[in-house]
């Protein structure tokens, strides 16, 4: 009888892997950092003495790039689980490249702002854009390094779908989606504020 109760009690326990859970919480906490930045921006903007400038149009392109990269990333995962080794590898490489293109475009954006006379040490309206986009780029670089790890797995280990590899790949995919989502949040906010 006692054993029966034990089993009943354990019904409905969450089955999510602890590492995935840790990743989600970690992302929540990174998110808070950006929430702090953006709230500071909004509060500061409301106080006046705020330099208006044209938000660099190049960020529109970087937005498209990162959204596409999320799709290719998902495609790579899909291909991995469905046994299509070629697409798995190809899409993974594409994602890594798109990630780097994104960083490059961000850099171009900063150059464009600089050329317009918006400097890091000028009016906070510009400083905020630099600081927030750079912090985001830092997180994205972390994402790219996890993709590089995934690429090493893809090319060094023989292709095989095991629960363990699936799990690890998922961690990479989820984090990438997070930095993508983070950018969308920031981008929408920038569009509203500038």
């Amino acid at each position, binding site marked *: 009888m*006692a*054993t029966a*109760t*034990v089993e009943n*009690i*354990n019904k409905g*326990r*969450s089955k*999510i*892997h*602890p*590492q995935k*859970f*840790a990743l989600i*919480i*970690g992302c*929540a*906490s*990174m998110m*808070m*950092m*950006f*929430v*702090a*930045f953006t*709230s*500071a921006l909004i*509060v*500061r903007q409301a*106080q006046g*003495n*705020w*330099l208006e400038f044209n938000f660099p149009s190049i960020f529109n392109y970087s937005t498209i790039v990162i959204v596409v990269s999320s799709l290719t990333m998902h495609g790579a995962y899909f291909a991995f689980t469905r046994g299509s080794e070629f697409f798995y590898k190809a899409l993974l490489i594409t994602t890594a490249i798109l990630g780097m293109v994104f960083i490059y475009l961000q850099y171009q954006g900063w150059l464009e702002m600089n050329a317009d006379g918006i400097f*890091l*040490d*000028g*009016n*906070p309206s510009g*400083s905020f854009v630099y*600081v927030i986009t750079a*912090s985001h780029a830092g997180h994205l670089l972390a994402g790219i390094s996890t993709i590089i790890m995934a690429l090493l797995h893809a090319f060094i280990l023989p292709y095989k779908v095991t629960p363990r590899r699936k799990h690890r790949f998922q961690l990479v995919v989820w984090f990438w989606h997070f930095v993508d989502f983070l950018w969308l949040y920031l981008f929408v906010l920038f569009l509203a504020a500038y």
Partner: protein
Amino acid sequence: MADTGTITAPQKYNEETLIEELGYDDHFHDHHHGDKYQSSFIFHYIFSMDHKMIARQFLITGMFWAVIGGLMSLVFRLQLGFPEESMAWLKPILGGWITVNEAGIGTLAPEFYYALVTMHGTIIVFFVLTAGLSGTFSNLLIPLQLGARDMASPFLNMLSYWFFFSAGVVMFLSLFLSTGPFSGGWTAYPPLSALPQASTGSGAGMTMWSFSMVLFVVSVLLGGINYITTVLNLRTKGMSLWRMPLTIWAFFVTAIIGLLSFPVLVSGILLLILDRELGTSFYLSEIFIGGSALDHVGGSPILYQHLFWFLGHPEVYIIILPAMGIVSEVLSVHARKPIFGYKAMVYSILAIAFLSFIVWAHHMFMSGVNPFISNFFVIFTLIIAVPSAVKVFNWIATLFGGNIRFTAACLFGIGFVSMFISGGLTGIFLGNSAIDVQLHDTYFVVAHFHIVMGIAAFFGMYAGVYHWFPKMYGRLMNETLGRIHFWGTLVGAYAIFWPMHYIGMAGVPRRYYSFDNFQAFAHFDMINKFITVAAIIVFALQVLFLINFFYSIWNGKKLTTKNPWKASTLEWTTPINPGHGNWPGRIPTVQRWPYDYGKGGNDYISQITPEQEWEREYDEAH
């Protein structure tokens, strides 16, 4: 009770057999994972991944910092209580910070006074009461009370300690800078903190302060991720959320608050660093130093205050919630009664956690925030008193009519309740923005937060140490010394902080080096002397505690039973000196909630004991 007499024949269960029969086998000891980390001295005692060892590392590091932080307060209390006395005798320790004149009279440098106050606050708030308290007990108890072999990620756990350690190293080194450590207050408000030329400590001292804080936050985040994940994923069979001890609820919610609020501090400090190093103007605007204007234009120092207190207020609950959890557990065990209102306790923890995020501006009533917005914060601040009162009521109701064993642990638990009431009441004064006009930045605030947070959290920590020392070291601490420690500290702490309310109401501002130039405050010098003497005595009593602690590690009375307090939670089902993996064989499963004390005439019923026949009738009857 009499009517249940016939059905309460308590069945005797042997715990070993219970674990054998009902426990489940996770094949932990079949593979020898982990053992390679345990075999050598370095990996056993230093780079340990065992949560029990990491807990002790946090505790002892916290103690080290408590001694440093405490000694600092004695030095600045000497300055406040006996400003005319010579401090030349401190010259060998403090060196250049004491200037000795021709007559041989030594005086404390004013800059160093500020540095001491700042370091005292930073060290006690972050290193002692955050890392030393929640780091120690979350690590020790989360796996043990939940029936887990270890944390979800022992490696991250180890990193968490070492980031804390490195933060400490950086802060410690900053004490030896020729320009001194940071001296702009533990809250590090700009412009003092943002301009290296603002004061001696604002240069290298502030750089190291901010670096240390970032390392510290990393430690908190790594620890927190682990605590949350462990609580949600690694509970043993039968340990539903509603069967978790209140300690675990408290650590769990604390970790969530930490994960949501500390990143905000990082953002705030990051912008501060940029203002200092790269010339941005987030917090600085139109400042003149030495007659010439600085380049910084367009910043707002209030912005920093918002970011800081968005962490700062939740931080005070990060400190107090673990203490509350510990006290709930300790009071219930030592009063031999179930905790009163278990669910209400959990919901009030959750309510406090939620409210703690929407009251931060009560620290800024006098910073020029819009009075209309202040009202919003007044209301939510005062609402916090409701869940706080619920908890206080429940603790008292738990004690009421209990068969209380006045052990040192229990006394500190009761002392905690007393302190929390006294300090919470003054919070209600401060929470009214109109009254705060008079009280802000006076000794009233100092009295409020030292009683409600400083002393109360220390009491919670002491309750925990006395209670779980047997689990940590397999020995008992000396009870007599423990009781002397308690009564002395209780009386002494009130002696220190009670009078501060009066001088605070009279308007004496905090953080002043000397009141020589203020005729209005001259008659407080006796009070100041009294406070200083009390502080010295209280510090001496803490030394007594340390002696008791370290003596007992090696020479305390050895445990002869696994469960010295007759408590029902899982940690007491492990062997006296639990090895790696905590349980030698199977993991026990949980059959009931953690507070079955005095049920149907049973002194206690362990969480691993299955429900018995008589209980069903008993539960219906009650």
